[in-house]
């Protein structure tokens, strides 16, 4: 049992310590029959052979932030990748790379989050791996999750069907996760508590896809934010996009933080948001479903797909009626001077 306060290299060594770690700390939290077999591979019986499969690694710093932690993020992030591809997530893998000396109680907290997020989103962690590395070879803990989702019957999302006139929906306020992380990372002590939007979206996306027919494309605007996602759509389709600043849901506290640091919220990461491109006829139905779900209460139709004049372009109509281009973000936001 936990005689150790911290992770030792031997916890990843395949011997007794690793066995104890798995049996006493991981299995009880992530309990399910498939994982309990502790085989080299998980044996899954799926309801369909049409699946989505994805993987993502999580290296967030700080590990714990308001609204979540690396564990919750690792589960929700992969669930969301499956969800926006039009599938219902069923099983995840979990790989931990832990730096020697990492505190056991922090690991416990992270595992609790993983367990809770998996339970809430109705997926099982069915296989996994632990590696430990010497001090300095990793920054505390890195997590990789891969996931499988069953594709929803009749759903085929992609750039191909996007057409002029389609509406763009986002399921709530943007920039919450990124600004929370930036503020906690840069150690800015705002009195207001920014909170990450980190959440699993599959229940809402499945509900939308099962009850409406006009959804053509979905994506979760994580790194690079809304700006990156919309630019990808514009590039891939050759169509232009027009979004309306006044219609983009934003929390005032997040906006204030972004203004203070000189960030553009369109470029900031989200972890509980999707962008959906839907036919104009189905937009209202989508909005109704969103607004009746806890993760879509502040959803908004933020713009539309328009014809391209010269080059495919994402443009913002500002609150004062001006227009400006929304570029693909550079990739690293730097706090400004004053």
């Amino acid at each position, binding site marked *: 049992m936990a005689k150790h306060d911290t992770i030792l290299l031997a916890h990843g060594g395949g011997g007794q310590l690793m066995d104890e770690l798995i049996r006493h700390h991981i299995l009880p939290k992530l309990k399910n029959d498939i994982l309990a077999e502790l085989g080299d591979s998980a044996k899954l019986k799926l309801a369909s052979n049409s699946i989505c499969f994805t993987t993502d690694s999580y290296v967030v710093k700080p590990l714990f932030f308001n609204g979540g932690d690396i564990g919750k993020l690792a589960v929700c992030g992969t669930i969301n990748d499956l969800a926006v591809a039009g599938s219902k997530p069923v099983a995840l893998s979990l790989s931990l790379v832990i730096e020697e000396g990492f505190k056991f109680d922090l690991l416990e907290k992270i595992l609790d989050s993983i367990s809770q997020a998996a339970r809430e989103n109705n997926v099982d962690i069915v296989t996994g791996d632990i590696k430990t590395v010497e001090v300095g070879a990793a920054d505390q803990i890195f997590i990789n999750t891969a996931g499988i989702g069953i594709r929803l019957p009749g759903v085929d999302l992609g750039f191909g069907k996007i057409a002029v006139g389609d509406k763009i929906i986002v399921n709530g306020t943007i920039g919450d996760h990124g600004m929370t992380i930036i503020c906690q990372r840069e150690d800015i002590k705002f009195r207001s508590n920014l909170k990450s939007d980190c959440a699993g979206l599959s229940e809402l996306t499945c509900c939308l896809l099962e009850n409406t027919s006009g959804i053509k494309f979905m994506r979760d605007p994580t790194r690079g934010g809304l700006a990156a996602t919309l630019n990808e759509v514009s590039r891939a389709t050759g169509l232009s996009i027009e979004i309306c600043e006044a219609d983009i849901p934003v929390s005032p506290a997040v906006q204030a933080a972004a203004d203070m640091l000189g960030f553009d919220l369109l470029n900031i990461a989200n972890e509980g948001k999707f962008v959906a491109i839907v036919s104009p006829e189905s937009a209202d139905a989508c909005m109704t479903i969103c607004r009746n779900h806890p993760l879509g209460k502040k959803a908004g139709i933020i713009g539309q797909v328009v014809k391209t004049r010269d080059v495919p372009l994402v443009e913002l109509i500002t609150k004062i009626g001006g227009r400006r281009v929304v570029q693909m973000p550079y990739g690293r936001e*730097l706090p400004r001077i004053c």
Partner: protein
Amino acid sequence: MLERIYKAQRSIDTACERLGRQINIMEVCGTHTVAIFRNGIKSILPKKIKLLSGPGCPVCVTDQSYIDSVLKLADCDDCLIATYGDMVRVPGKGGSLETKRTTANVKVVLSSEDALQLAKDNPKKNVVFVAVGFETTAPATAVVVKEAAEQGINNFFVLSGHKLVVPAMRALLSRINHNIDGFLCPGHVSAIIGYSAFAEIVQDFARPCVVAGFEPVQILEGLAEICRQISVGKAELKSVYSAVVTEKGNVSAQKMIAEFFEPADGYWRGLGKIKKSTLKLKDKYSRFDAFKQFGITETPGGDTNGCRCGEVLCGLIEPPQCALFERSCTPQTPVGPCMVSSEGACAAWFKYGRQRLNDDNG
């Protein structure tokens, strides 16, 4: 809000019609530059209004030799560079703070206090604070020098690149750019120095000076006031940012600056040497002066490799007129500081305006 915007627009339109010629208005603040682009303000102005981005971005106006000095210090094993984020990617001789192999010696700080803390946390390192910015950031630098002196911290040094706004405006008008019809004066700087500081520009050069805030409606109201004055042949000093900016400014911040710094002749990118335009630490505090302690001499540095940031800063050209813009110089591969800083004119053009170039130029 929309009514105020329409009113400002109407007043700008009327002024343009009355004048019948192009009106060149310079904003002397990087935050204004970004706000103008981010809010698409140019797109709702008459084509006769030309907005010029002036020397208002602290990183952009910093002379190349200063950047090179910072990079040199970053190479010293016993030095730790504490810098505001915008400086990290400015290219100099042999790379930037971001690309240098010595990145372990470079820490991004959000305040001067963070820089001082870094010195306390690393007693074996010489922490050099890359202190750039106008009158807005200078008081914060003064505060930490005071604290370092009081607490006897001997490993903290300030490489003062602080600059004064008004001497730069004088230099522009007297020898560099005579086409500026009026100034949209910086809100943040004015909060410190007071709007009365611009009175000399109005008196000596007969150019309207209007201090405005950063909300789009405030910017438009500032522009409307400038246009009104120009159209009736007047030049007045005015603030439309009364909630924040007073006539005299923040006197205690001014006192802090005066206690620790003195105006000195110094080099600006694009504007060259300007008399009494920079702030150097007073001799009394020379033990914190990185220039003195590390034997750095200030020499004028030229723009590199065809970069025309200097001309951009003076409102002589717009970024797309530089041959490097969008070709070899992009936010991913910046050649000059105006493409690096989030407040730089080139970055703003690239990010928010470049596709609309043809429309903007009418």
